[in-house]
């Protein structure tokens, strides 16, 4: 960094030498505009560079040894699985009350293998908004009293005990199954799981117990799995199960029939447990297949952007690609794949890499443009789902208990051939077997590899150390601009006084004035605080709105908007009335407000990046430019230059984009076309967010609205001006 040259007014007196870091700070603050422009652009650029900087994944844990053992799943097991598939599909045709029937069939099959079987009855939890439960783990101690006997789900659980294991650890295999309207895919997933299960009852190498959970997905896959996990992790010592059976005799029938039919077997009425879970796999088979290849999709994002250990994904990826010849897929934003600007950006990076290679043959970064586009699409979806904080599958429920879990969705090359069905059973089964055997080798929890990463392809990732750079660059200008604004606001008045009197003759009174002025920011802090309070109120409002019965999303959204405006007006009249009388030095006041807002924004973004990086990153992308550009409309209007016009336009556009509903519609429109966008959608989206206890919601509510003082102020100032003119 060059030596700062203080040209203006430091020449007359040789000052005592200041420390370099202080001088650097002063330099940065004094050139905050340039610095912020450079930092922001480089931050955005770094974000786009991430696919290029992605590293290849590698298996970090020695103990895993995926693929070192040859698969033992034979055709016999496949035939077993096939038998189950047939029975299930037949029973579907046969009776109307298939729900219980198919569960009985599954349980019978498990019992025949010699596994311990139990049913777990659960009642779906209604989506409820708990404003204070965002960061707490799912509430498990709560006992629901008011359930009805009509709506319940039954999970069938089979447990294989490791023959020589200590029974302290377990691996969970989950297959969601909706008995009432199951497609062929679900039956097939059960077939795969069953063939693996039947193999695992025979092997001698199990060190961990195997739990096979057939999750009743009639109330959603997540609900079933989370209900079972809640029960598993928090043993209840009340006599709730007996209470249940008393109240709902028809369910009890099921259990009794079971017990009678297979007396002496390992069926049990009570909830069965194995050890702590080392890992969990959710297996699904998609009904509509791919056209070209057998593909397996990995879903990993859990609530609040938590990811399972990268090793788990690596193991699955390695086994699927190198052993079973399946194509592995992670979620992409499809709309980005065809975007031409991304392609050209990729080409630019590619040619840059070539130039770099000619200069230094050793450096090999740079990937082909098509790969770049794919990587960016994957990265974008990875960011999006992490930012949203909504789990992408039932595996999310496991992450809440710190269990590493992923969802595998097999989409087979579709044909109704029986050979094909056997083939997919064999390969899917061998994949699951390989993963289980690999996890079985583990001695400790997954801990070697990354937990904080973004995937750019199934075999490439960006680790936390790399992606934090982009974020840090993006938010770095915030404190500098805040400092420089604060200094400006204070020193401009100083400067006026300094003109009238000599700098040496500063009296006590002047000093007193300075101290008063230096506390002036409290006033603006109050304003910012009020707006934050408003944000909190707005984000709590849906709790009350959703109590209103029979509300369409549209109307509830309108109610929400109206209530928010009302609350703003009330707050303004009650608390912020002194705001209006500040008229004298509006510009200075404005600078202070901006400075305080920016610093609170900086703190908020910094904190959020620790909780959920992706949310913070997207938030920063939207809000940092807005914060830096925001300026009262009046001042710009008065100036009337081209530059200020540009700034007005930027402000208005950014101001609208950063407004959450607007951003939502814009994104949705971009991805799906504007025709489908609907006001009610936003309500649904928000509803889904709080249903999942997403911290994103809180973040949007508090922080996004926190940035609103700027907007409000920028509109308020001309208004007040007009009021002043009228007087």
């Amino acid at each position, binding site marked *: 960094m060059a030596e700062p040259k203080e040209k203006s007014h430091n020449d007359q007196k040789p000052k005592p030498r200041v420390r370099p870091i202080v001088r650097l700070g002063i330099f940065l603050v004094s050139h905050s505009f340039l610095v912020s422009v450079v930092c922001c652009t480089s931050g955005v650029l770094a974000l786009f560079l991430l696919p290029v900087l992605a590293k290849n994944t590698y298996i970090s844990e020695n103990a895993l*040894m995926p693929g*070192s053992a*040859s698969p033992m799943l034979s055709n016999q097991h496949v035939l077993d699985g096939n038998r189950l598939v047939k029975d299930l599909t037949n029973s579907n045709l046969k009776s109307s009350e298939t729900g219980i029937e198919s569960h009985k069939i599954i349980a019978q099959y498990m019992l025949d293998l010699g596994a311990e079987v139990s049913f777990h009855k659960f009642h779906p939890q209604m989506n409820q908004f708990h404003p204070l439960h965002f960061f707490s783990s799912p509430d498990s101690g709560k006992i629901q009293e008011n359930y009805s006997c009509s709506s319940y789900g039954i999970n069938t659980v089979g447990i294989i005990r490791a*023959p*020589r294991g200590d029974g302290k650890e377990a691996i969970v295999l989950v297959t969601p199954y909706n008995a009432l309207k199951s497609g062929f895919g679900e039956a097939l997933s059960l077939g795969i799981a069953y063939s693996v299960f039947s193999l695992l009852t025979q*092997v001698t190498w199990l060190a961990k117990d195997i739990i096979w959970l057939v999750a009743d997905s009639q109330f959603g896959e997540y609900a079933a799995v989370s209900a079972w996990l809640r029960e598993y992790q928090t043993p209840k010592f009340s006599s709730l199960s007996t209470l249940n059976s008393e109240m709902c005799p028809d369910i009890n029938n099921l259990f009794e029939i079971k017990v009678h039919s297979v007396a002496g077997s390992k069926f049990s009425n009570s909830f069965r447990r194995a050890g702590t879970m080392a890992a969990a796999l959710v297996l699904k088979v998609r009904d509509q297949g791919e056209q070209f290849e057998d593909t397996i999709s990995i879903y990993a994002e859990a609530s609040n952007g938590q990811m399972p250990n990268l090793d788990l994904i690596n193991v699955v990826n390695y086994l699927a690609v190198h052993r079973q010849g399946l194509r592995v897929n992670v979620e992409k934003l499809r709309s980005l794949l065809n975007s031409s600007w991304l392609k050209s950006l990729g080409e630019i990076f590619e040619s840059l890499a070539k130039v770099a290679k000619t200069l230094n043959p050793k450096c090999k970064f740079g990937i082909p443009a098509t790969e770049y586009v794919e990587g960016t699409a994957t990265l974008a979806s990875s960011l999006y789902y992490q930012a949203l904080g909504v789990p992408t599958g039932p595996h999310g429920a496991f992450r809440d208990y710190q269990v590493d879990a992923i969802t595998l969705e097999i989409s087979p090359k579709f044909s109704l051939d029986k050979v094909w069905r056997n083939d997919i059973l064999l390969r899917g089964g061998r994949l699951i077997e390989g993963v289980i055997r690999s996890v079985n080798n583990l001695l400790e929890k997954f801990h070697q590899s990354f937990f904080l990463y973004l995937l750019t392809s199934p075999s490439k990732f960006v680790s936390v150390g790399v992606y934090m750079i982009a974020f840090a660059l993006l938010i770095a200008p915030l404190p500098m601009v805040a400092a420089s604004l604060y200094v400006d606001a204070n020193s401009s008045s100083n400067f006026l006084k300094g003109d009238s009197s000599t700098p040496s003759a500063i009296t006590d009174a002047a000093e007193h004035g300075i101290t008063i002025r230096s506390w002036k920011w409290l006033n603006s802090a109050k304003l910012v605080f009020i707006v934050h309070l408003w944000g909190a109120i707005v984000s709590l409002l849906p709790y009350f709105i959703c109590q209103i019965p029979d509300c369409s999303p549209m109307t509830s959204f309108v109610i929400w908007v109206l209530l928010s405006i009302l609350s703003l007006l009330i707050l303004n009249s009650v608390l912020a009335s002194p705001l209006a009388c500040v008229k004298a030095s509006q510009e200075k006041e404005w600078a202070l407000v901006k400075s305080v807002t920016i610093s609170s924004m900086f703190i908020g973004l910094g904190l959020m990046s620790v909780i959920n990086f992706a949310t913070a990153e997207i938030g920063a992308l939207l809000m940092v430019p807005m914060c830096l550009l925001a300026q009262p409309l009046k001042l710009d209007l008065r100036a009337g230059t081209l530059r200020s016009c540009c700034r007005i336009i930027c402000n208005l556009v950014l101001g609208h984009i950063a407004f959450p509903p607007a951003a939502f519609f814009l994104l949705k429109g971009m991805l799906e076309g504007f025709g489908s966008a609907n006001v009610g959608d936003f309500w649904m989206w928000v509803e889904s967010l709080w249903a999942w206890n997403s911290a994103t919601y809180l973040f949007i509510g508090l922080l996004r609205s926190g940035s609103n003082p700027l907007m409000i102020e920028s509109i308020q100032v001309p208004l007040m001006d007009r009021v002043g003119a009228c007087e």
Partner: protein
Amino acid sequence: MDTFNNSKPVLHLLLLPCLLLYSSIAFSSSSVEAAMHTNNWAVLVCTSRFWFNYRHMANTLSLYRTVKRLGIPDERIILMLADDMACNTRNKYPAQVFNNENHRLNLYGDNVEVDYRGYEVTVENFLRVLTGRHETAVPRSKRLLSDEGSHILLYMTGHGGDEFLKFQDSEELQSHDLADAVKQMKEKHRFKELLIMVDTCQAATLFNQLQSPGVLAIGSSMKGENSYSHHLDSDVGVSVVDRFTYYTLAFFERLNIYDNASLSSLFSSYNPSWLMSTAYYRKGVYKRSLEEVPVTTFFGSVMETIHTDAAYKALSRRNSGRFEAQTSLDQSVYHPERRTQMKVNDRDETHNINPEGNKQLLQGQEGASKCPWNTFCNKFLKAENVDSLVNYGLVAMVPFLVISTWLVR
């Protein structure tokens, strides 16, 4: 009478060469004793835990089997296994360990005697075994009871690096530690020749500090090289043997107890392209040329039967060994005097085969002669000392000749 009186100094004169003879015999016998190969010991160490290090246990057990087959009895093998793979729940074949995917040979058969297992295998215990500084409660079967005539094979395998070998995933043995232990062993006359064989990454670096004489060392790889496993058993699901050990075993499979293959033929059998690393041996101060040393010097135990009249001779040595062990316990604080004293004791013990030899030497010739006579007989039995014996005999004949001619005159 006169003649008798005269004969008194003559008698003294006569005695003098006899004494000379005795002392020279005694001295030569002691030096011969130090050079004599008495027995063979093997210390086989597997230092790593965890299921995925199955091959290290298989390595060690294969070598255990080999040295046992070549004649080292179980009581002279200290086997240290840091983990129990045979009974690991992940083992597809319970209570069996294989070193080849053909599963023809179960290494963990009926007569495997593991001396240190599991968490007992620590650097501390390993060094205690080498130096013989045990707690009193440690049974004899867990001690390396070698003597100055012992040939010891020290085999170690595990995960290592530059000048260290990892023990139990938590501690490490450094090359300094090893060199120091070997030096102590030398000082305490615990071995005559020692072969250190290490199969680990950068194994050669472990020998950097070795300076003691009579120590031969061979490692599986040079500095900066990795040692690789030989093959994966896809049935068990782990690699079952390391390359260096695999080819060592391949060499020994061709041999039996009576083979005379030399160490150099073993060392030259390691092909770097097979090992994927360079086997490195360090001769150091090892005097004999490797072509002349048969591998059975270390890997087998061809015992020579030594006939002794005095049955307590071996007993006395054992006693002194125990004494040594006891003193060593007290030596946790270093006492130079005691150390020297002990050395003197050692020297006494080795030079004078009879423990009370000093006193007897003062008492008279008969007492003293009893013992040398035995050794004399021993030496006489031994073919190699015939030349010196004849020489001494001729020298002894001279005074007799002189005396007899003088008496006759």
